[in-house]
C-alpha cells in the first residue's frame, strides 16, 4: 500500500454524461424520474386532455364568427351545437373599450393609448436609450397629457364627463393611476415606518394599519357616497377622481408593507458602507438601499400590481362601469340573449385580464433575472 501521493497531471474538465443532458435527460430526470414523478406526469397529461380540447372546441371550432343578432348564435339556426358567440363581442366592442365615451371623441382615447404604448415600450426595453428622460415623460408628463386629452375642456377639446367613461378605458386609467400613485406613496410610508423619528413612524403606522384594516369595497363606497355628505359642496370633486384617490391610498398602504419587507432584507452593512462614505439619508436611500430593497420585492410588488389591476372590477359597486361592468350591462341586451352569451362574454374578459396579468408577471420575472448580480449567496 502506498501512503503518499503526488499528482503528476491535472485532470481536464469533461462534459457530463449524455443521459443527464438534452431531451433524453429531461425526459428521464424531470418527467419520469421515479414512481411519484411518473404518476404526476401522467396525471398532468390527463388534466390537459380533459381541459384543452373542450376549450378549443368552444372558443374556436364550434364558435360562431359572423352574425348580426342573437338568431345567428342559436343552435336551431346554425344546425349544430354552438360554442362562443363572437358576433356579440364584435357588436359590443366599442362599448367594452370606451363605455359611453361619445363616439366622435373616441379618437382621443386611442391617441392616449398610442402615446402610452409608444412611451412604455422603450421604457421596458433595457437597451433603449434616454431611460431617465423616458421615465420622466412617462410617469410625469404623460399622466397630465392623458388627463387633458381624456377629460378635455381645454385646448379646444369638448369636455367629456367621467360618468360617460367606461370599459377598458376605466380599467386601465384606474390601474395606471393606482400603480404610479401607490409605488411612491408606499416607498415613503415604508421609509417613514422605518424612521427613527417617533412622530413620523407613528403617523405612518396609523395610516398603513387604517387602510389595510378596511376593505376596498368600503373605501370605494365611502369615497363615492359618504364623503360628499361631509364636505362642503364647493369641495366636491369628480366621482372617478375620488375612486382613484381611494384606490391609491389603499394600494399605497399595501405597497408600504411590501417595501418594508425589502428594506429589512438589505444588510445593515450596506447602510454603514454608505454612511461611512458621507452619503446622507436621502442619498443613501436612493442610491444604495432602495435599489436593492425594491429588487428583492419585485415578485411581491408585481403581486400587488396584478391584484390592483383585477380589483378595479370592484368599482362596479359605485356605478362606475369598467370592462366587466360594461360586459354585464351588455348581457342585459335582449338582442343578444342566447344561451352562450354569458360564457362568450366572460371568456373574452377572462382572456383580456389573463393576457395583461401574465404579461406583467413575465416581464417582472425577466427584470428580476436581469437585475440579479449575485447579491444573495
Amino acid at each position, binding site marked *: 500500500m502506498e501512503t503518499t501521493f503526488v499528482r503528476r497531471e491535472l485532470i481536464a474538465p469533461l462534459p457530463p454524461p449524455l443521459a443527464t443532458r438534452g431531451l433524453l435527460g429531461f425526459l428521464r430526470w424531470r418527467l419520469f424520474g421515479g414512481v411519484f414523478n411518473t404518476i404526476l406526469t401522467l396525471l398532468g397529461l390527463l388534466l390537459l386532455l380533459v381541459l384543452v380540447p373542450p376549450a378549443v372546441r368552444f372558443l374556436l371550432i364550434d364558435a360562431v364568427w359572423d352574425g348580426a343578432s342573437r338568431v345567428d348564435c342559436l343552435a336551431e339556426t346554425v344546425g349544430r351545437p354552438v360554442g362562443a358567440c363572437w358576433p356579440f363581442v364584435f357588436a359590443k366592442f366599442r362599448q367594452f373599450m370606451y363605455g359611453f365615451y361619445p363616439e366622435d371623441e373616441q379618437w382621443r382615447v386611442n391617441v392616449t393609448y398610442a402615446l402610452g404604448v409608444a412611451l412604455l415600450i422603450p421604457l421596458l426595453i433595457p437597451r433603449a436609450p434616454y431611460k431617465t428622460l423616458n421615465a420622466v415623460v412617462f410617469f410625469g408628463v404623460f399622466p397630465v397629457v392623458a388627463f387633458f386629452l381624456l377629460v378635455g375642456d381645454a385646448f379646444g377639446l369638448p369636455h367629456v364627463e367621467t360618468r360617460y367613461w367606461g370599459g377598458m378605458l376605466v380599467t386601465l386609467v384606474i390601474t395606471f393611476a393606482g400603480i404610479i400613485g401607490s409605488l411612491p406613496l408606499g416607498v415613503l410610508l415604508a421609509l417613514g415606518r422605518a424612521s427613527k423619528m417617533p412622530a413620523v413612524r407613528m403617523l405612518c403606522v396609523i395610516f398603513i394599519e387604517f387602510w389595510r384594516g378596511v376593505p376596498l369595497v368600503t373605501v370605494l363606497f365611502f369615497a363615492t357616497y359618504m364623503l360628499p355628505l361631509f364636505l362642503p359642496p364647493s369641495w366636491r370633486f369628480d366621482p372617478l377622481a375620488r375612486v382613484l384617490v381611494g384606490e391609491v391610498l389603499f394600494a399605497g398602504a399595501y405597497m408600504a408593507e411590501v417595501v418594508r419587507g425589502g428594506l429589512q432584507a438589505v444588510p445593515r452593512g450596506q447602510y*454603514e*458602507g454608505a454612511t*461611512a*462614505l*458621507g*452619503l446622507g439619508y436621502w442619498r443613501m436611500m436612493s*442610491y*444604495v438601499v432602495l435599489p436593492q430593497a425594491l429588487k428583492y420585492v419585485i415578485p411581491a410588488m408585481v403581486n400587488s400590481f396584478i391584484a390592483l389591476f383585477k380589483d378595479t372590477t370592484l368599482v362596479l359597486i359605485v356605478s362606475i362601469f369598467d370592462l366587466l361592468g360594461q360586459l354585464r350591462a351588455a348581457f342585459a341586451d335582449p338582442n343578444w340573449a342566447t344561451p352562450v352569451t354569458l360564457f362568450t362574454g366572460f371568456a373574452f374578459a377572462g382572456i383580456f385580464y389573463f393576457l395583461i396579468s401574465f404579461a406583467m408577471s413575465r416581464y417582472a420575472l425577466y427584470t428580476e433575472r436581469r*437585475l440579479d448580480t*449575485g447579491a444573495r449567496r
Partner: protein
Amino acid sequence: MAMADRAEPVVDLGKRAGGLAMRTTKSEIAVEIAGLNKWFGSFHVLRDVSFKVMRGERIVICGPSGSGKSTLLRCVNRIEDWQQGRVIVDGTELTEDLKTIDEVRREVGMVFQQFNLFPHLTVLENCTLAPIRVRHMPRREAETLARHYLTRVRIPEQAEKYPLQLSGGQQQRVAIARALCMQPKIMLFDEPTSALDPEMVKEVLDTMVALAMDGMTMLVVSHEMGFARQVASRMVLMDAGQIVEINEPKTFFEHPQHERTRLFLSQILH
C-alpha cells in the same frame, strides 16, 4: 505601483494624490478622543477612553473580542454614537449636528470586515458613487479617479464587474479603493482581513502597507501581528472597554508592560 495602467492619464492624478499629502492643516493632531464612554443598554462597552492620533501615524488596535475595539473605531466617524466624552477629527468636534458629521465622514474613509460593497453596482460605480453624489464631481473625472485608485490596489481590469463576481481579497481591495476615491485624510480599517480566506490575506495587507508608506493616517483594528510590526507607529491593546496599554511596536511585542498585554500576546503568537 508596479502595474500602473498605461492607458490612464496617471500623471495628472499623481499631482492630485500628491497634493493630498501636502495639504496644510490646522493641527498636527488627526484624531483626539477624550473621556469617551458608551453603553449598549446597560453594558458599559467603552470606559473612559482617551488618546490622540497624530497626523501620519499608523495605530493598530488589538484586543480580545468584545473588548470594544471595533466600537471605538466606529466612533471616529460616528457610525456609533456615545453618551459621554468628545471625539475631535481633523480639528472638527463631532456633535449631534448632522452637517458636521457629514463633513467629517467625507474626510474619513472606512474599510469593513465584510467589505460592504454595494452588490447592485459595478466596481467602478461603487468607487464613483460618493465622489459624484457627495463631492459633486463630474462623472468622467470621478471615473478617471476611480480607475487610478483601482490601479493602485492592482485590480484595474475588474472595473466593469459586479462585486460578487470577485474573490474576497479582490472585494476588500475594491473597498479600499472606494474609500480612497473620497481622498480621505484618515483611513479606518475594521478587521479588514478577518473574513478572508488565508490565501487572500496577503494581497490586502500589501495594499495597506503601500498606503502606510504613502503617509496615510491609519487606525487599524487587526490581529495581523506581522503587519502591525511592519507598519504600526504605536500599538493599542484594549480589554473590557478600556485601553490597557499604548506602546511603540518594538516595546509592545518584546517587552509588554501590562500583564494583560503579555497574556494576550502569548495567546495569539504561538
